[in-house]
């Protein structure tokens, strides 16, 4: 990290690190005890660690003079490493909690490792740790290449990545220690939420400053998606997390929203976390890496415009389909259902555009496992968006809601689409940034591909069966008008499916571990820099 920074930049970094350490010290001292104090000490340790690294490098060699004529890829490499570390943590905890549903005693009798506390560790570890790091890292790569400009400065990319990972660590350790505000996918407490806003603003400013330096007149479609991801996630995060802390010196807080309004705000957030965190940014990834890897231009530029604005406008409405038949007013449920069905049009336009792009390159899909990851991602994107619109229809939802069908649907999106496109992007980026043409082991990529595909299919199919069985058992009546099954009978019926999904998840995890190993070996054998360069030399700062 330090070798790529100028001495002046190292000084700025040192100052920021000291401020971080001071902030941690104030938090720890003010809270005195409990989670917030521990989190203060974490920030203090991180700040001091960074200060030592940067302080120690103040008198080392200056950054190479020709650095401004190259893209700045060191943050991307760090982001990819964090992506893979979080993938292994998040997926391992996922397999663990899946196993607990089959084998409830399979965890130490400590509060920190009980199912209810580990479950948000899995969701946050995957969505924010794995997904978020992948988005930030690839966005830096794509932004520079499509703008033909170097990142606007060298300090803020590090601030964004390191600060973001501090948020992730605060969040997951907080849950294990019992600190949560219970809002799904927004469980982190108020000070972590404020911290994320600071990081996010830094990210947005860096993005716009780099765009402003672009040497291409047009902003490429991938950047529209990354911009939508940054902007709308900020909007969702702030509104959903508005809360009043019980005291400024403790982690506990109460959301300002209550009851039915809170439910609507929560699922407006929750479903659009799927839309703008787990879809928009990853479509940005797809729109860059798929054409790059297949060597084919995007099939239709017009279709990409229609699908982009369709997704941005329609998605925001659909959250209320999580609340069918509940105490949410009927009109709001109906709006959610209607827009969910309309959403299929831009979703399939994107998936179709991606698959049509591969026309003429099918031999590459056959031979290149990396491109196959992206192809499978596009197919699963199409499948799970169809399933999503289908499940949002009120009568279908009456059967599927509250069951494992929803869990299966989410995982067909996250495993089949999000993770697959990330792995496709990683296998494209890692050799390139290591000055190579291929990953260290092509066989390992093949193994990873088939483990990922089989794991996803086993997981999703077992959850479909589980969900439909549950839904049907809950609503089954005897001829005399009594319910056929007690609730616990429906729990017992789930056992084989819960076992299968654990195996499916385990296969997927094994693939991710192979990927991490393969990336590590490739990065360690790195020879120099990425070979591509900005079109125009950047003026000296």
């Amino acid at each position, binding site marked *: 990290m330090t070798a790529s920074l100028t001495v002046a930049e190292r000084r700025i970094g040192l100052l920021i690190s000291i401020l971080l350490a001071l902030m941690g010290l104030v938090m720890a001292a003010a809270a005195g005890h409990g989670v917030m104090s521990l989190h203060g000490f974490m920030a203090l340790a991180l700040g001091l660690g960074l200060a030592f690294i940067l302080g120690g490098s103040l008198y080392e060699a200056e950054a190479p003079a020709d650095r401004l004529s190259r893209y700045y890829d060191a943050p991307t490499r760090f982001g990819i490493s964090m992506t893979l570390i979080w993938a292994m943590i998040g997926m391992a905890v996922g397999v663990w909690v899946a196993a607990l549903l*089959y084998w*409830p005693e399979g965890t130490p009798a400590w509060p920190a490792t*009980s*199912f*209810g*506390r580990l479950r948000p560790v899995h969701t946050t570890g995957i969505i924010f740790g794995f997904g978020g790091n992948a988005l930030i890292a690839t966005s830096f790569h794509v932004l520079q290449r499509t703008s033909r400009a170097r990142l606007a400065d060298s300090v803020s990319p590090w601030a964004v990545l390191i600060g973001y990972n501090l948020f992730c660590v605060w969040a997951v350790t907080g849950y294990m220690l019992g600190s*949560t*505000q*219970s809002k*799904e996918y927004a469980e982190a407490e108020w000070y972590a939420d404020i911290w994320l806003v600071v990081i996010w603003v830094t990210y947005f400013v860096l993005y*716009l400053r780099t765009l402003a330096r672009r040497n291409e007149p*047009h*902003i490429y479609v991938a950047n*529209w998606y990354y*911009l*939508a991801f940054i*902007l*709308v996630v900020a*909007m969702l995060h702030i509104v959903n997390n508005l809360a*009043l802390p*019980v*005291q400024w010196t*403790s982690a*506990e807080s*109460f*959301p300002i*929203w*209550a*009851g*039915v*309004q*809170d*439910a609507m705000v929560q699922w*407006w957030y929750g479903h659009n976390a799927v839309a*703008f965190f787990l879809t928009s940014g990853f479509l940005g990834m797809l729109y860059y890496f798929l054409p790059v890897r297949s060597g084919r231009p995007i099939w239709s530029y017009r279709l990409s415009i229609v699908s982009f*604005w369709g997704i941005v*406008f*329609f*998605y*925001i*409405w*659909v959250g*209320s389909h999580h*609340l069918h038949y*509940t*105490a949410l*007013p009927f009109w709001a449920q109906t*709006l959610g259902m209607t827009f969910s069905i309309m959403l299929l049009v831009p979703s399939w336009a994107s998936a179709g555009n991606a698959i049509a792009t591969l026309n003429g390159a099918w031999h590459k899909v056959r031979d290149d496992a990396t491109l196959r990851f992206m192809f499978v991602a596009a197919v699963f994107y199409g499948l799970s968006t169809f399933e999503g619109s289908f499940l949002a229809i009120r009568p279908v939802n009456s059967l599927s*809601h*509250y*069951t494992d069908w*929803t869990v299966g649907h989410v995982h067909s999106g996250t495993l089949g689409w999000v993770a697959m496109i990330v792995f496709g992007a990683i296998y494209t980026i890692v050799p390139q940034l290591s000055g190579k043409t291929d990953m260290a082991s092509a066989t390992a990529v093949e193994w990873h591909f088939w483990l990922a595909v089989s794991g996803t299919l086993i997981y999703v199919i077992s959850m479909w069966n589980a969900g439909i069985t*549950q839904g049907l058992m*809950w609503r089954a*009546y005897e001829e005399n008008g009594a*319910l056929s099954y007690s*609730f*616990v009978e429906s*729990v*017992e019926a789930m056992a084989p499916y819960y076992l299968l999904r654990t195996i499916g998840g385990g296969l997927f995890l094994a693939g991710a571990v192979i990927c991490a190993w393969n990336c590590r070996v490739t990065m360690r054998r790195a020879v120099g820099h990425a070979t591509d360069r900005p079109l125009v030399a950047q003026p000296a700062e």
Partner: protein
Amino acid sequence: MLKLHYNLEKISMGLVAAIILAASVGGIVEIAPLFTIDETVELPDDLRPHTPLELAGREIYIREGCYACHSQMVRSLADELDRYGPYSLASESAYDHPMLWGSKRTGPDLARLGEKYSDAWHVAHLINPRDVVPASIMPSYPWLTRSLDTELLSPSLATLARLGVPYDEAMIAAADADAAAQSRPDSDAMDGFIERYGERPAARDFDGDPSRLTEMDAVVAYLQSLGTLTDAPYQILTEGGQ
């Protein structure tokens, strides 16, 4: 139209503004009216907020992530009415910051759980679910027998009062004493508790150990209060039947 977009792609702040605009409409149309249309939440006269002990139990319910497997929202479907009881009303969670409607039923819905089972059943079930339901896959919570930390109770009530939950000054000041009193109905503090919260909240030694105020007391008090904060859903069902 395409020409317009062709130009928009060259202006980053234009794209930013257009994205914010397009992404704001849906949220505004769906969320804002929920605060202005009176029929959205019709507060019944008998709706009471949680007592301090129940509130402490609710915080533990949140801390342990119970909401990940248990919903608290009976939908207006025949089988749910037969299985759980009257469908949930928006007013029942009007004082809930946050709501705990849930999104998944790995275990059953809990909206109508209050007073369905005995306190002793809940205590045994929480310590080891498989002692009372052999096929259960619920985690055990043996650590709930530890003492309840009441340090934040009073400021919690004060915070909720600021957000519009009807806790008055006396309730905020006496939060600790009221939490203890609710689990020891024979103590002197009980008169004050009844004065502030009335006769309706169940006041018992919930965990069977009168010597200590435990997290178990709080959780069981909370679970026994579910669905009992107002009679409105039961009345609507009876009226509908007639």
